[in-house]
């Protein structure tokens, strides 16, 4: 006899459950669609946080003298640079994959549904710890854009330790999600679905997960060394210790460089699926498309080895052969899309506008890369900021938002609003172009990056910074429209069509 009331639980049955199980609350759900939605929600939250801080930085740069940010520029900058790629872009793709991949491969759920819930909540908690690090102090010991960690003793060490620990937790969460998705795609495909028949987004997820599984751990190793050095007051990363600057660069960038490309890879697959859906026919050559996506993932590792011999900046803004090679598979995919669009009759849809916007933005970035190579732009100018915002942030954001639009029926059972989507595309594309143009032009003129204030600026520089601020405002506006669009769909808003999943 039970002495106490048993806690409410679904009754265990004699056979493994064959009926879908009701979801439980948000905090306990293991349903992959809900988890995907939660990932997307938190990712957008972090985007707003990182984006608003970025806007503050831009406003600061637009006027001469230190006005808005005071002493906190380095802190805010580090916040912006850490939060936006790692706490927004990557989890957005994980969320879309979590919600979409099982359906695409014909599985009922992920291989380990509760493990994905663990990955989600670890990401949220880890992200919270990273944000807490910035509230507690200034994590000055390391930065993702710093090529060399700087050891600073004293007051900032708790903040630095929290930053390192928080990032470690977020990385572990990403690793767990990658292992889960990899195992799902390898073992849970529907009977009779060989890899060659995998939908492109699932294939891209597989390729991404495979690279992340071997790349993230080296970053964790680097974080471990950094933590030991910072927390125990050591001299591992001190300037005098030979070889450790390169060690940090390698351990950081073996993950960091491919990550930058892997943030675009699922987007390329989504764009291919968008083209297929809107023209109503498969891509002209699926095998080549799969090969291109795989090649993109493999070559993303090549971009790392390129500049690593320099003891300073590994990320070279100018043209470099191995980095450029990555463009080849992307180019192949674009050609396939164009070929498919020609064959079929595409329906006008906001997702296609997103793809076109992406193409325009990328071409803009490529053009500037060629110009920069010809003009011999130095590393460390505003050009790199512009390029990052165009190619590393803007392009993946466009594809990411396109993915949310495209898969909304599967994720929420309803489509997003087309009209608002069109507005999003215009605002985002316009904003990224303007913001990027401003920084590119500043770079050609030699303005430095990562500074709170341009010392002795030419008058044109301040004008360009103001232009950049206008661009940033457009981007922020476009993001808000997107968030509103999603929110209205989640709430079942008027005008969002019901689409059977």
């Amino acid at each position, binding site marked *: 006899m039970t002495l106490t009331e048993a806690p409410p639980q679904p009754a265990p049955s004699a056979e493994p459950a064959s009926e879908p199980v009701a979801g439980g609350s948000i905090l306990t759900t293991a349903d992959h669609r809900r988890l995907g939605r939660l990932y997307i929600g938190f990712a957008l939250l972090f985007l707003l946080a990182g984006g608003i801080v970025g806007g503050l930085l831009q406003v600061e740069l637009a006027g001469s003298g230190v006005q808005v940010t005071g002493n906190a520029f380095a802190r805010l900058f580090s916040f912006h640079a850490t939060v936006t790629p790692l706490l927004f872009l990557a989890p957005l793709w994980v969320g879309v994959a979590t919600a979409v991949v099982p359906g695409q491969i014909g599985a009922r759920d992920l291989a380990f549904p509760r493990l994905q819930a663990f990955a989600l909540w670890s990401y949220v908690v880890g992200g919270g710890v990273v944000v807490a690090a910035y509230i507690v102090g200034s994590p000055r010991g390391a930065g993702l854009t710093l090529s060399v960690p700087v050891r600073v003793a004293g007051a900032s060490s708790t903040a630095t330790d929290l930053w390192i620990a928080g990032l470690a937790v977020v990385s572990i969460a990403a690793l767990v999600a990658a292992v889960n998705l990899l*195992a799902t795609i390898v073992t849970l495909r529907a009977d*009779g679905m060989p890899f060659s028949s995998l939908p492109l987004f699932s294939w891209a997820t597989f390729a991404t997960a495979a690279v992340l599984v071997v790349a993230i*751990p*080296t970053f964790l190793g*680097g974080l471990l060394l950094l933590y030991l*050095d910072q927390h125990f*007051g*050591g001299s591992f990363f001190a300037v005098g210790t030979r*070889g450790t600057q390169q060690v940090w660069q390698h351990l950081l960038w073996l993950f960091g460089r491919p990550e930058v490309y892997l943030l675009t890879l699922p987007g390329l697959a989504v764009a291919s699926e968008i083209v297929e859906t809107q023209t109503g026919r498969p891509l002209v050559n699926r095998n080549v498309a799969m090969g291109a996506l795989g090649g993109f993932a493999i070559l993303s590792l090549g971009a790392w080895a390129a500049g690593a011999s320099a003891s300073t900046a590994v990320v070279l803004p100018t043209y470099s052969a191995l980095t450029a090679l990555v463009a080849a598979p992307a180019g192949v995919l674009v050609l396939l899309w164009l070929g498919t669009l020609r064959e079929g009759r595409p329906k006008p849809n906001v997702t296609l506008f997103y793809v076109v916007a992406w193409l325009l933005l990328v071409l803009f970035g490529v053009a500037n890369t060629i110009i920069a190579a010809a003009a011999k732009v130095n590393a460390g100018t505003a050009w790199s900021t512009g390029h990052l915002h165009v190619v590393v942030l803007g392009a993946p954001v466009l594809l990411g938002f396109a993915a949310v639009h495209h898969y909304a029926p599967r994720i929420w059972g309803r489509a997003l609003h087309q009209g608002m989507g069109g507005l999003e595309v215009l605002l985002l594309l316009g904003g990224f172009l303007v913001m990027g143009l401003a920084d590119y032009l500043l770079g050609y003129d030699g303005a430095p990056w990562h500074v709170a204030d341009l010392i002795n600026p030419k008058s044109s520089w301040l004008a360009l910074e103001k232009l950049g601020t206008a661009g940033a405002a457009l981007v922020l506006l476009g993001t808000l429209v997107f968030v509103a669009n999603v929110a209205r769909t989640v709430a079942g808003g008027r005008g969002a069509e019901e689409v059977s999943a």
Partner: protein
Amino acid sequence: MSDATLALPAGPETRKSDVLTVATTVAGIAGFMVIVGLFAAYLEVRALAPVWPAKKVSLDNYLGTTLTLTMLMSSVTAEWAVQAMKIGNRRHALTALALTPGFGLAFLNLVWYLVTKVGFGPGSHPYGALFYAFIAATVVNVAVGMGFLIVALLRTFGHQVGPGNTSVARAAAAYWHVVTAGWVLTFVALYVFQHR
């Protein structure tokens, strides 16, 4: 949507049970890659440092060898457990599944002793930082592996894992083998490549 019609004749039922093993092996490989990263750092710093290992530091080969032998033995017992389970020898399976984390515990105990004996901290010098990084990564790997093995042991005890359903034990053993490989790499760094 509940009438499922299989279009192909059912293939051999291998895939469903492989999920756990695939996942834990891949996770083990991830843990191994942490050690790889540290090894790369070790090689670099060691080659460029004026003195290696740091002054007055000398690792006793006996301890290192004992640690390695312990891990190798534990891999053997892990595999023994899986094989015993496959042929239905429950007693052997339980014994081996208990021995393996037992070896793991002995390993951790000796690592603890090593750490107390070395006489430097992670902040003492670059060698110290690397040494403690290796130890921390290894301890985490071993602890996770022991967790898997103890779960396998408990579930075997509870008759939930057995000859028809060995995937939990298989997965735990696979992870443990990769952990052993990770320790061997650490051993090579700290002991075989101890001096320049």
